[in-house]
């Protein structure tokens, strides 16, 4: 494989307004959106078959840029890079599980280029920001030339590298609602070496009143065809009293729910063996961040 070059030809477009970009998508066939390129350019170089007549660079569209925090929550523009987000004080304060995921991703130069929107749209089952997006109840705004729709993060992924978007749509906003009071979140991933793609990851976001869990969302990565929301398990924990036994039981159920496979990073057996422990760990860490005692 020659990773020196991009072995395919295409036309390059760099619109400067969203309206222009949406028109391109409506009018032209086989347009591929380029954000940071840290997934897409790697795929093009390594020969992944992507139908491509036009590469549309969206990085010159000013209106898609910055993260913005308000009383309702955090609006993340699709061009906000992982580095910008990681350093955002509002994000660090209110969405610690996402901050942890961002810090654990790649290395500084990739993070200076890569976007969270690209991480989600690429729809890899390992995407590190997917779990935090799901657990914080992220709403994804998908726009085409005539309409927009809002999709919950947990409904966005449809399979490995696929999502609900049509080729005419752009993800124009990731919205994270303001977390509840007494809320805590945590993200953990296991890797072969530091700064690697996850062999498995888990995220939990909880809220509490005293020792009782009043809100709970758990998600896992690299253990199924999509980043997985463990909805039933999460709902079952609401109203229960937090305890080591409860965490252990939640871990056991999580390990039963997932559908891992063997791949070049690790085995299904390892993933199943470690899943429960990882879920216990994120529940404990999220609980402590919510001010709860272990």
């Amino acid at each position, binding site marked *: 494989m*020659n*990773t*020196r*070059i*991009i*072995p*395919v*030809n*295409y*036309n*390059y477009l*760099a619109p400067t307004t969203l309206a222009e970009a949406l028109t391109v998508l409506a009018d032209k066939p086989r347009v591929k959106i*380029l954000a940071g*390129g*840290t997934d897409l*350019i*790697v795929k*093009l*170089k*390594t020969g992944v078959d992507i139908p491509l007549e036009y*590469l549309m*660079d969206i*990085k010159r569209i000013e209106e898609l840029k910055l993260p913005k925090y308000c009383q309702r929550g955090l609006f993340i523009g699709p061009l906000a890079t992982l*580095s910008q987000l990681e350093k955002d004080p509002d994000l660090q304060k209110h969405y610690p599980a996402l901050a942890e995921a961002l810090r654990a991703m*790649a*290395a*500084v*130069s*990739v993070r*200076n*280029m890569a976007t969270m929107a690209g991480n989600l749209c690429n729809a890899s089952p390992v995407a590190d920001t997917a779990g935090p997006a799901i657990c914080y109840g992220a709403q994804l705004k998908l726009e085409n030339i005539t309409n927009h729709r809002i999709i919950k993060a947990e409904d966005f992924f449809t399979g490995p590298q696929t999502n609900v978007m049509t080729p005419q749509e752009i993800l124009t906003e990731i919205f994270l609602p303001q977390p509840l009071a007494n809320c805590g979140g945590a993200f953990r991933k296991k890797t072969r070496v*530091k*700064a690697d793609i996850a062999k498995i990851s888990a995220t939990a976001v909880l809220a509490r009143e005293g020792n009782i869990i009043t809100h709970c969302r758990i998600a896992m990565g690299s253990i199924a065809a999509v980043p997985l929301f463990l909805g039933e398990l999460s709902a079952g924990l609401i109203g229960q009293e937090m305890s080591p036994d409860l965490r252990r039981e939640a871990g056991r159920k999580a390990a039963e729910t997932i559908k891992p496979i063997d791949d070049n990073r690790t085995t299904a057996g390892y993933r199943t063996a470690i899943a429960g422990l990882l879920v216990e760990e994120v529940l404990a860490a999220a609980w402590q961040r919510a001010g709860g005692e272990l």
Partner: protein
Amino acid sequence: MAKQEIKLTVNGKIYHLEVAPNEILLNILRDKLFLTGSKYGCGIGECGACTILAGGRSYLSCLIPAVAADGWEITTIEGLAKGEELTPLQQAFIDEGAIQCGFCTPGMVMTATALLNENPDPDEEYIKDYLRGNHCRCTGYIAIVKAVQAAAEKQRQG
């Protein structure tokens, strides 16, 4: 797949170039501008050998289509020294023996330059974490980390 004209400022010099949409910035730097300091290691973002700076931050030139860099002001390893005068970081790499074959060195120095832009007083953990995307297959990392620490110290003393 018509060629497009782009403007690049590299190490302070302005270039107007005709590039195809699938040409990679690293190859333009190396093959058209003959700035061969930036290296091709992996081509897929894993090794850091191709690291350049734009706006003081580090980027991987192996993953950037040249057309997407239109208008950028870039610094490559060739642009750090002022004539014969090396930057404190470059000198520290030599003094600490942080170079063996030298293949990783341009990328390492560019990332470490960005590091010192961001944090003039980094501790060892910070340096290791910041350089985690730059791979060296021969020197080992201890001398490299020491070089960054020595350069930081020197810069702080002015």
